[in-house]
């Protein structure tokens, strides 16, 4: 059989470009992080609102939270199923997640402190998210370090 594939290696790589595009990976990470951060921020505002709220305001807060969670779900689906995150991407993504968690948690805690309600809950939830982001960061660094170590072993570098 003297057949040849229709696509050359270069053409095949070209077809894979959309999946490998840095912009697409960045968008997936941003959707996940911004969605989660937005959901946390909106929920924080909602919980710490002083006094009773009209039904319409509850509805708007609920809708905003659902929209943010939908973006987070979409970003999570992209990151886990559609867009490959290589070791260096994971490190960058984990730093972005940590920065987003820290800033959102701080903002929610400041607002809760000013309003004088829900400070404890916002600190606990924010703290948990920061711990999760830190864990992801440590794991991403460890994975990259393990791969770099293996690369050195295989190339004979010390």
């Amino acid at each position, binding site marked *: *059989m003297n*057949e040849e*594939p*229709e*696509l050359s*290696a270069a053409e*095949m*790589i070209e*077809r*894979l470009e959309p*999946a*490998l595009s840095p912009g697409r990976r960045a968008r997936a990470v941003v959707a996940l992080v911004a969605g989660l951060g937005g959901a946390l921020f909106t929920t924080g505002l909602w919980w710490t609102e002083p006094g009773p709220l009209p039904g319409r305001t509850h509805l708007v807060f609920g809708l905003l939270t659902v929209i943010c969670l939908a973006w987070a779900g979409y970003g999570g689906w992209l990151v886990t*199923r*559609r*867009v*490959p*995150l*290589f*070791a*260096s*991407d*994971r490190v960058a993504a984990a730093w972005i997640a940590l920065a987003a968690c820290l800033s959102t948690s701080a903002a929610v805690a400041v607002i809760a402190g000013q309003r004088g309600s829900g400070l404890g809950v916002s600190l606990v939830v924010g703290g948990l998210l920061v711990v999760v982001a830190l864990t992801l960061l440590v794991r991403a660094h460890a994975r*990259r370090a393990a*791969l*770099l170590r*293996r*690369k050195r072993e*295989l*190339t004979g570098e010390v």
Partner: protein
Amino acid sequence: MTDELLVVRAQLGERAALAELVERWRLPVWTYVRRMLDAERADDVSQEVWLAVVRSLPRLREPGRFAPWLFTIARRSVTDRLRAEYARAAEQAHDPGPDVAVAEDAIEAMTDRAELVAVLSGLPVLEREVLVLFYLEELSVAECAQICQVPAGTVKSRLNRARRLLREHMEGYPR
């Protein structure tokens, strides 16, 4: 440069290493797919295979076992395609249209359409698959077993049966 080093570099995010992996394994993957499907589908399914490889590569835990992992993905893509063909053919079989007679067995029908691989196409899919993996892709029995998700003994029995069928086919083949 070994496959393992290329995989490790690709997992780190080096695009050149990924391109070299594609360059190195493009033909073996296409050959495997082509022996299981016809030419038109082979190109299409090969692309699907490489897309799945790129998406899953960061999660590959044993870079040293790239080849069996790659062919597991290729096999899954081929199986999905055959299953879709089979489902479509089964639907047509229930439909009293003109295609009833040819839609009895989609997999066999696909085998028949793979006319360029004259000898291999005469074998059933399972036997053809182990022949392709073992002899053409030069994978071990253990690797074939991992890819086909069956015990090594089953791979050996399929190989024996494939060899017997191949021999019978060759004897009856016009020279």
